[in-house]
């Protein structure tokens, strides 16, 4: 079983300061880290690795990303590979995945690729599927748990309202894992020291057999960065027909207009409790006693 994990080098959001006027990030004060979702992806890969298996970590990023790959090696990854080329400008997901797909092919293709579901910088959670398209592999997103049995992978996906779906996918496959599933293990001191000056193999476009034209994809142009302003959500607009008092009352209740529900003003607590139970049964929240 050979597993590949994609690691991204990202600015720590808690160190980001945005100029309130221009929306520009003060780069001088930013600290970088391993994308949190990738950290759990790496840990899961290490837990999953059978005795004869390997975990290889990949990152597309500048020299600083070496630190992150070294951290991964210290934690127990078997090999690391970094992709970068000075010809690369800002990384668009489609470019990243073209490079990652090529890098995965450098070594024999793995059986499973784990990605984080989302990167916390400018990411959009599209890397797993884009990579899947390049490799023509299946992909499962929003994964919270998974296991492998006889060549098939079973994964749980997050649905709305805390529900989960259980999916099955054939290998080789790509998974996009949610953030915070598990913590990355701590490296031992000797490992930490060993990797500190371990050189990380670097692949540029040439080594990957790509030319700049291969990276030419249509993508929207970044026009402007701005400080965050949440969008105004659709709000209840009071019915213009009513009286002033009514409209004020409606606004005050945040548009939650009165519900003409049933109000039970009298009765003993016992009767009231019965009324609640009857109501819950009637609306299907409780099973009717038979």
């Amino acid at each position, binding site marked *: 079983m050979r597993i590949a994990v994609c690691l991204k080098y990202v600015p720590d959001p808690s160190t980001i300061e945005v100029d*309130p006027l221009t929306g520009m990030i003060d780069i001088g004060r930013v600290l970088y880290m391993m994308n949190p979702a990738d950290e759990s992806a790496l840990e899961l890969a290490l837990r999953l690795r059978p005795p004869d298996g390997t975990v290889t970590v990949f990152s597309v990023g500048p020299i600083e990303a070496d630190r992150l790959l070294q951290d991964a090696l210290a934690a127990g990854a078997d090999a690391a590979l970094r992709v970068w080329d000075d010809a690369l400008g800002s990384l668009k997901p489609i470019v990243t995945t073209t490079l990652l797909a090529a890098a995965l092919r450098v070594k024999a293709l793995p059986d499973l690729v784990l990605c984080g579901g989302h990167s916390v910088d400018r990411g959009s959670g599209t890397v797993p599927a884009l990579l899947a398209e390049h490799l023509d592999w299946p992909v499962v997103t929003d994964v919270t748990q998974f296991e492998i049995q006889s060549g098939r992978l079973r994964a749980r996906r997050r649905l709305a309202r805390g529900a989960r779906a259980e999916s099955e996918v054939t290998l080789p496959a790509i998974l996009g894992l949610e953030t915070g599933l598990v913590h990355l293990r*701590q490296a031992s*001191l000797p490992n*930490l*020291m060993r990797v500190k*000056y371990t050189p990380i193999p670097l692949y540029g476009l040439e080594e990957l057999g790509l030319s700049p034209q291969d990276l030419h994809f249509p993508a929207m142009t970044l026009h402007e960065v701005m400080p965050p302003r949440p969008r105004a959500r659709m709000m209840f607009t009071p019915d213009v027909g009513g009286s002033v008092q009514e409209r004020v009352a409606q606004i005050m209740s945040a548009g939650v207009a009165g519900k003409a529900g049933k109000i039970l003003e009298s009765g003993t607590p016992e009767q009231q409790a019965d009324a609640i139970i009857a109501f819950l049964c009637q609306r299907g929240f409780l099973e009717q006693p038979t």
Partner: protein
Amino acid sequence: MTTHPANQQFDVIVVGAGPAGSAAALLVARAGLKVLLLERGEYPGAKNVSGAVFYGSAILNELIPNWWEQAPVERPVCRRDIAFMSPTTAVALDFRCAGAGFATAPYNGFTVLRPKFDRWLAAQAEAAGAFVLTSAVVDDVLRENGRIVGVRVRREQGEIYGKVVIACDGVNSFLAKKAGLQREFHPHELSLGVKEVLGLDPAIIQDRFHLTDNDGIAYEYLGAITEDVHGGAFLYTNRDSLSLGVIGQVSSLVERRKRPYELLERFKAHPAVAPLVRGGKLREYSAHLIPESGWAMKPKLYTDGMLVAGDAAGFCLAAGLYLEGMNYAMQSGLAAAETAILACQKGNFSARTLSVYQKNLKQRHVSTDFRAYRHAPSFVNGPRLQNLYPEMVAQGMEQIFRVDGAPKRKILPLAYRMVRQSSIKPGQLLRDVYQVARAYLW
């Protein structure tokens, strides 16, 4: 660089990448010895309270000539203000110096942001050949036959060996205690500093503080600002931010049931301070202990196989006019490094050999300064200097300047009346004058 340093013996292990540790590691590495610098933070300076005046420019200049040209410094400190406060007034002494080593090389002091500065300094040590390991919390010393032979890092297989260990792990040093060199401190020997960094436009800073170009100013405050809690406050200008904070003695904070951040809020709301910090945007908030009792807190500085430097050794001068720790940290770190180098040359790491440390500290003026100011801390932390006198000065000035139709009084009768009104006895006043003189004049 060495390829497989794990399980190998280092000549020197330095614990803590603050100014003391990084300076020590730098010097040891330059001597061609194998040195390991261990830091618990994710990077050096990550855990250090940011925003400070670094008065060790000349010291660092010896090591790295014209260091300020490459280091992340904020502003050279060309003005210093000391303000005596009452709840509504303030009297300030303003010292300005345009040249003579304040605004020109080698400079007297710089404001720095610690996370950046500490990181840079550690990088210098690394460039000189030190092995810098971050995310490494040291949680014990290793002994063989009573001698300290290394440390244990809180990780799997965390034992690592060195001929000399230099503990630079800051105030309340865990290592010094583990080695039996330091006792537990009393709350009255420690202060708690709370600090904020407020972002502000450089142009506003220059206007507001009347600064030319990139010059900086350091304010120190005494008196009512800390209410009845013993301590003081400070405000420094960085390039595009202000560092400000309040320092309060831990014991009096506890006694008076005061929360440090309440004091900080009060300080920021004081009429003399509020206009200076107006519009500042909070960038960081942090709290940290400071050893305050100077010479009295000094631990035993060495034992078989180990030296203690910086705040860990209590080398922090926090006494009224002075708030200096980084420079002494660096000086003592260098003195420890020199000692360790000597021990390595001799191949002897006993307490006897390491006792040269004391001589080295003297040569670097660390022990001399602390001996000289040994009376300052207890006095400065006394209630009268803390609260009464600054307030009297401030109130006195108010009465001198106030024009309200009442007959003007000359200063001496005014002062006499104020002393009479206060609870101070004349004998006490005389003793205090003597103490001020002893603490600061001779």
